[in-house]
């Protein structure tokens, strides 16, 4: 455990106001980041609970834990919860908290817009989840293929909650992505050139542009579905001259970039943690950055690999197979650079490092199975089998979630001023690692043995009994791992804050300020002289600049307009579910908020 030798600035009495109102009106990126991270983790547990119900049902043949209708809702809600309400917000938590610190800024470019993103996210998440109280959750999967979603086949409110919940969440993601793109491009400290940005910041920039460009096609698809269901059109309904494949094209035009939105934060996080715990600068910084950009571009040219079995034709299939396989190249470049970063380094095996190293291994397994079904004939065999479930959980659970845990253990001292216990952390890691592989590796076997996805039960004697029971036991191990983590979290939060500014001896700017940082982030905006600023300053004898006495640091005042505007947005979305009068009510609320927002003094 690193006990810093340099002068330790213990966090002083926080200047923060406390109380619920101060959190509701906050525009501070660190508080909004905390809100995102905590909300995201709570929904991670909700999504995990949904997954546990699924595994309980499938543990034995002809299971009777839940019925077919509830099962249909659960696999849809599990995916939606994990993607939109857990992994994306946990990533957003890190973006919010860390990006301004990492680029040497006092806040994001638009602090109130940042608050607005969070509140719209929270209301959208509650709207989507509340569907289980009002007649049932979305029951056509997160991909919601037409015509399963038409009024004819889904007469209940389920898919309406899906459409309006995702539209609302989309507004939130759009606002956040615009904010982070501008922040990263425009708010960098002096000397922080683009090619000196930490890789995590680069990945966030790529994600922001992916979201900015990928959300509109989804919005259009959802609007068409909404109009088909309620306002007499037939965009997706073949009986009325519509085309169900139109939905698939628009949805996956969003859906595949979205996959990279989920994985790139984890790639950014391990690019921060691997060098720190190997005590070496990141190997091949430029190659990693440009590989990330290449993944961002190629992510737009692969959507139809989700549609090989729809009869695209051989030319289209060949093109999309080619582009999909090409994505393996930049991904491989990254993996090799991360390994080269560790090579010859003096490695510290902290919990964060455990998660980062296991990210490399488990994500690569998922990556390889991904390249396998880039091939149309192989994919045709694997389509809709458990093989695909195994693949996507290796990249999301073994990739994205492993990376996020690496980040949690790494940045926890910065965010809270406290350390998570390393012993419990390693217990958490091993249980999580073993449980994750026990749950998802056998799904490769189940998939090759022909077990289809999205079936609520199966007969015995098909050769699927053993591995299903095995996977369910694995999911119980994951549950125990998460309980260990939660215990570790609360145990740490009860201790006195004792983390020094830079406990890991890391090179990033976020470690130049106190743990946790003061409300204004930096007493003096740091000057950046190298890609690893703190290491460079230490080795070249640059002391941090002293604050000039009497300096006035301007911080934006708190505002209640963001939450008011988010409420107005919620009213817009609730209208089509209940009565359009509610939508009409939302419009003046939004206009009032915008006027108040624009006229509110910020100086």
């Amino acid at each position: 455990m690193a006990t810093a030798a340099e002068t330790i600035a213990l966090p002083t009495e926080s200047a923060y106001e406390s109380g619920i109102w101060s959190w509701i009106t906050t525009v501070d990126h660190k508080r909004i980041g905390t809100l995102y991270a905590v909300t995201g983790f709570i929904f991670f547990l909700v999504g995990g609970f949904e997954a546990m119900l699924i595994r309980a049902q499938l543990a034995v043949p002809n299971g009777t834990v839940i019925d077919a209708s509830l099962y249909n809702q659960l696999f849809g809600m599990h995916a939606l919860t994990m993607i939109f309400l857990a992994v994306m917000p946990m990533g957003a938590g890190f973006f919010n908290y860390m990006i301004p610190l990492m680029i040497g800024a006092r806040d994001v470019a638009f602090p109130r817009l940042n608050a607005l993103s969070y509140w719209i996210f929270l209301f959208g998440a509650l709207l989507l989840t509340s569907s289980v109280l009002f007649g049932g959750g979305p029951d056509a999967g997160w991909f919601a293929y037409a015509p399963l979603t038409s009024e004819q086949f889904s007469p209940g409110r389920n898919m309406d909650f899906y459409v309006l919940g995702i539209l609302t969440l989309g507004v939130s993601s759009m606002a956040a992505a615009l904010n982070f793109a501008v922040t990263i491009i425009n708010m960098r400290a002096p000397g922080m050139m683009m090619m000196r940005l930490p890789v995590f910041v680069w990945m966030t920039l790529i994600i922001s542009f992916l979201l900015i460009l990928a959300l509109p096609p989804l919005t259009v698809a959802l609007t068409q579905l909404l109009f088909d269901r309620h306002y007499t059109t037939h965009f997706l309904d073949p009986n009325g001259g519509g085309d169900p494949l139109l939905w698939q094209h628009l949805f996956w035009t969003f859906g595949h970039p979205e996959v990279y939105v989920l994985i790139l934060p984890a790639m950014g996080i391990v690019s921060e943690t691997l060098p720190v715990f190997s005590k070496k600068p990141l190997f091949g910084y430029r190659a990693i950055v440009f590989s990330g950009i290449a993944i961002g571009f190629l992510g737009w040219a692969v959507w139809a690999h989700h549609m090989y079995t729809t009869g695209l034709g051989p030319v289209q299939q060949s093109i999309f197979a080619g582009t999909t396989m090409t994505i393996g190249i930049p991904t491989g470049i990254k993996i090799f650079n991360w390994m080269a970063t560790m090579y010859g380094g003096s490695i510290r095996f902290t919990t964060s490092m455990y998660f980062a190293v296991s990210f490399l291994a488990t994500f690569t397994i998922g990556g390889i199975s991904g390249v396998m079904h880039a091939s149309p004939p192989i994919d045709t065999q694997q389509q809709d089998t458990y093989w695909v479930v195994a693949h996507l959980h290796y990249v999301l659970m073994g990739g994205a979630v492993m990376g996020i845990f690496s980040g949690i253990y790494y940045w926890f001292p910065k965010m809270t001023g406290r350390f998570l216990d390393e012993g419990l952390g390693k217990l958490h890691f091993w249980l999580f690692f073993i449980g994750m592989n026990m749950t998802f590796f056998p799904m490769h076997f189940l998939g090759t043995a022909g077990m289809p996805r999205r079936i609520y039960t199966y007969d015995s004697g098909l050769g699927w009994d053993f591995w299903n029971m095995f996977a369910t036991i694995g999911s119980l191990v994951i549950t125990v791992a998460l309980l260990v983590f939660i215990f570790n979290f609360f145990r740490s939060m009860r201790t006195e804050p004792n983390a020094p500014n830079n406990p890991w001896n890391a090179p990033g700017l976020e470690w130049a300020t106190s743990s946790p940082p003061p409300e204004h982030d930096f007493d003096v905006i740091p000057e950046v002289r190298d890609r690893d600023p703190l290491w460079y300053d230490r080795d070249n004898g640059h002391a941090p600049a002293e604050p000039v006495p009497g300096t006035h640091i301007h911080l934006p005042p708190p505002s209640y307009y963001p939450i008011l505007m988010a409420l107005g947005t919620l009213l817009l979305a609730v209208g089509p579910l209940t009565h359009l009068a509610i939508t009409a009510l939302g419009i003046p609320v939004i206009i009032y908020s915008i006027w108040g927002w624009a006229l509110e003094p910020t100086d």
Partner: protein
Amino acid sequence: MAAAAQIEHHASSTGTDNRKLLMWIFLGSECLFFGSLLATYLIFKGEPTTATNDHGLLMIPANLLDIPLTSQSTFVLLMSSLTMVLAVYGAQTNRLKMMKLWLLATIVLGLIFIGYQVFEFTTFGNEGLNPSTNQFGASFFLLTGFHGVHVGIGVLYLGSLLLASFRRTGLGPEAGVHVELAGLYWHFVDIVWIVLFTVIYLIPA
């Protein structure tokens, strides 16, 4: 005074104002939005349809679109770009009367365009085309309807600026930036219309 001099102003890394950068990137996103709607329109363009109105008229673009009428509304919208430029010029050179006048002119032209669109939609409805008639109806009303909503939001945006400019403090020291931002949005909506007018009205099926 020394303390006041130390107040840090947010100098941006690229030299471009944060708000302008945000607007440009947002308009990039809007391109994908209208692109997806336009793709939907083009996919269904030329699909055979058997839908007719009460007089047996086939509900296809050739029988419905009134190119001379929509050319007039297109001209009105294009002229609003000119008035918008003049309003931005007024704001940036601190000629506030000029700014207010041309903002008002832009709003009026925008409202006239919306009026044309309401008239067109009503006429189509009377002739028997509505969103449920066929794929042309559905994709036409969704695409041009969303464009109309964008013009409407633009009118509200410019109207808010005009209202605020009558306050004692006017639009404040950054009036030029505020009006320019609205101008970026307004020109974008105009450009989208040029594309829509060409694709829907001028290119035959």
